[in-house]
């Protein structure tokens, strides 16, 4: 067992992990931050996306030991300081960008990373960026709408109904 220390959602945490412990397992089992979900075992679904030093990372592809000293942000750290939903979270609710909620944490974390690097993405850019996040409920339509809205763009073109 190795001791790891990292900052998670602004708080310094540490724990003992095996060499093979995945970051996703450390977050879920070690820190009991169960908002980060695991939906596959081949790093395809993206339900486990968190931010590591500001970058979107599938936490099932990274060992906990590799995150030593890193700054981690999970879905639990995404709301505003007063507990209200952040702009992206609120847009997902406003535009019905989630149904069962299982892929949602990864979607929100990916969307936040996208908007950090591209504040005004086109619909096509959003669809391409989300290639690594699978949603089985929404058909993506309303997720695209939510991300467009969160970036301050009109959703009229997406609102095809």
């Amino acid at each position, binding site marked *: 067992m190795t001791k790891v220390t990292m900052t998670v959602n602004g708080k310094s945490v540490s724990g003992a992990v*095996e060499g*093979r412990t995945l970051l996703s397992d450390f977050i*879920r*089992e070690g820190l009991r*931050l*169960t*908002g*980060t*979900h*695991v*939906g*596959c*075992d*081949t790093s*395809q*679904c993206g*339900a486990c996306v968190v931010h590591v030093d500001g970058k979107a990372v599938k936490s099932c592809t990274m060992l906990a030991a590799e995150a030593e000293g890193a700054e981690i942000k*999970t*879905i*639990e750290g*995404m*709301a505003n300081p007063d507990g209200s*939903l952040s702009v992206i*979270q609120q847009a*997902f*609710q*406003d535009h*019905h960008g*989630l*149904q*069962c*909620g*299982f*892929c*949602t*944490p990864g979607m*929100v974390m990916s969307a936040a990373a996208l908007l950090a690097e591209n504040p005004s993405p086109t*619909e*096509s850019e*959003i*669809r*391409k960026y*989300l*290639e690594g*996040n*699978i*949603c*089985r*409920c*929404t*058909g*993506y*339509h*309303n*997720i*695209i709408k939510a991300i467009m809205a969160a970036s301050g763009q009109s959703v009229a*073109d*997406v609102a*095809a*109904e």
Partner: protein
Amino acid sequence: MPKDHGIGASTKRREDVRFLTGTGNYTDDINLAGQAYVHFLRSDVAHGRIKRLDTSVAADMPGVVQIFNGADFEGVGGIPCGWQVTDRHGNPMQEPAHPVLAQGKVRHVGDAIAAVVAESAAQARNAAEAIELEIEDLPAVVDMAAALADDAPKVHDDLDSNLCYDWTFGSDDDAIKAAFDAADHVTTLDLVNQRLVANPMEPRVAVGDFNRASGESTLYTTSQNPHVIRLLMGAFVLGIPEHKLRVIAPDVGGGFGSKIFHYAEEAFCTFAAKALKRPVKWTASRSEAFVTDAHGRDHVTTIELALDADNNFTGLRTRTMANMGAYLSTFAPSVPTYLHGTLMAGNYKTPAIQVNVKAVFTTTVPVDAYRGAGRPEATYQLERVIDKAARERGLDPVALRRQNFISEFPYETPVAVAYDTGDYTATMDKLLEMVDRDGFEARAAESAKAGKLRGFGVNCYIEACGIAPSALVGQLGARAGLYESATVRVNATGGLVVMTGSHSHGQGHETAFPQVIAEMIGIDADMVEIVHGDTANTPMGMGTYGSRSLAVGGSAMVRATEKIIAKAKKIAAHLLEASEGDIDLKDGQFSVAGTDKSVAWGDVTLAAYVPHNYPIEEIEPGLEETAFYDPSNFTYPAGAYACEVEVDPETGRVEICSFAAADDFGNVVNPMIVDGQVHGGLAQGIGQALLEGAVYDADGQLLSASYMDYAMPRADDLPNFQVDHSCQTPCTHNPLGVKGCGEAGAIGSPPSVVNAVVDALQRGGHDVTHIDMPLSPGRVWQAING
């Protein structure tokens, strides 16, 4: 009452806040003190006899608590099947045993052989790898036609053959022969409705617990219907009476049918927790989900459509082989029969229809209901053969459909169901408004300039939702009732709790159900809380599938609320010193007709629990009512869908340019949620048409057993959808007039995609009349290039 949260309002979902902040409570988020973890040793061959199973080395591995195998379950029941199909001679289907852990033989890759319980998941996995196992390979049985050959190896040695049942339904032989003998034209189509995997994003999880003080077992599980699991597992597998068994399905991350069924892992965890006197947890990996979650579809069909000289449909005959897989999953036998054969009339007044289905055992994962369940298979073959007929007769596919629409209701089909209401012309008109068909040629010319072939496809669909009534489904072989339940508890200060037997795993019950109550009483929807998913605090209900929650569960809630209002009016009449018949309830106020006397909802509810001034001799205190609602018929949502595609003839790649859906769901409670349900259904239907397929090789290995190999639709595979549900013919037999919307998109979309691709290829001069799904670039390219 504010109109932003009653019936018809797109109220934002209250459940979203917990899902968006990581505070949902999914089954894998549940960890009980002292829990152990189970890892299943699963068969890596499709068919074989267990010759040796030695767990002695594994048992000494670090952390191992106990290792179980088939012998430990010899006195225990097998996993039961919930529907018995009988053939037309009255013979019941062949029903094999389905042990919790394999006994003697393994019958599909993924069949569980042994279960290692250990202190950690990693230790359980390590020990499972140390189990010494010898399996004598037996020939795999994968192809259905081969499985039915006289000399085929048998999946179940004690059955006569691999035939589960041979079921014929609808018009009699003479009527169908007469229709085809008299036909001016017969269109025939052979097609495959390929095997799919439901793939909810949350893999299945089970946590068993046992309370030594009370002797009560508790199972936390990823289920769409906790009461059904309690009954099946308690009564048929483990012999635990309901009052000693609690099943909890907390937040569930999608189901799409695959979480209806009772699975062996649920029984194992409950059994092992009791045996070991400590909680036992199992979490499926995605790879495990692919080989253990029941699959969907997998039909091979020949369909024939007879037309007269005026192009009226005069006869329809369809023969299907339906794959059951290795064992009968909970509702598997009903899917190719009563959820498929009964829908073969579609939206058309074909007078003679006969359906034959042979259900077949193979050494593959069991197949059961997946979003739509039988209805997509019916819709696909019907709407494909109509399109082929239109092409053969040189007719406009829209006109041919319109000409044959059922236009008078109620309508009794030749396949046993009676449509209560509908307007298929209206949804087709609406669809054509949405798609700009007139502009197609110009768009096709643009595509041609870029070297692409553009095509337009259309189809209609009808589905039967809210499966019911119980007495009828009982006659058809269901071993369950199909009512739904609700208890409405009004608290002293006026807030309500609705305990529903249905279950929400993405459908938004927690938001939509209160909208109905808010409308009925005239109070704020925030005063209503929905409780679901726990057998300890909800009345016996059948759960959520078949687009039944609002149509059946919502109706139960309405009935219970009507009882509440009737009693509250009695109390109000007493308080207002008026006659009960003169009391009106509006906007949360009880008033006496023709006077200015009124009393508020909260005053009446308080009186019910503080009955100082109360008609105690006439009615009891308290305000809590339960209703069980058993519908008198199915509901019949219907619609018309259109798809426009561009095919790249160089690569065979299909791009969906637009997709439009015009649905008739009857009345709609929350349009935003309904739109979302349709979007999701369309994605799964388009996924089936273009991308998805579970592929077995001849040895029974599932080649598509991960997201690296099974093509889940991703954001850049799909278009934006145009959806409309403004055509509304309310259901005539439930109190809300609702029909259900959860499956429509998945049922209605595959045929128009395929119709559009065939149209594109034909316009490009390629003599292609059919391509089996998924229309992957390789298949389309091969079709183009012969």
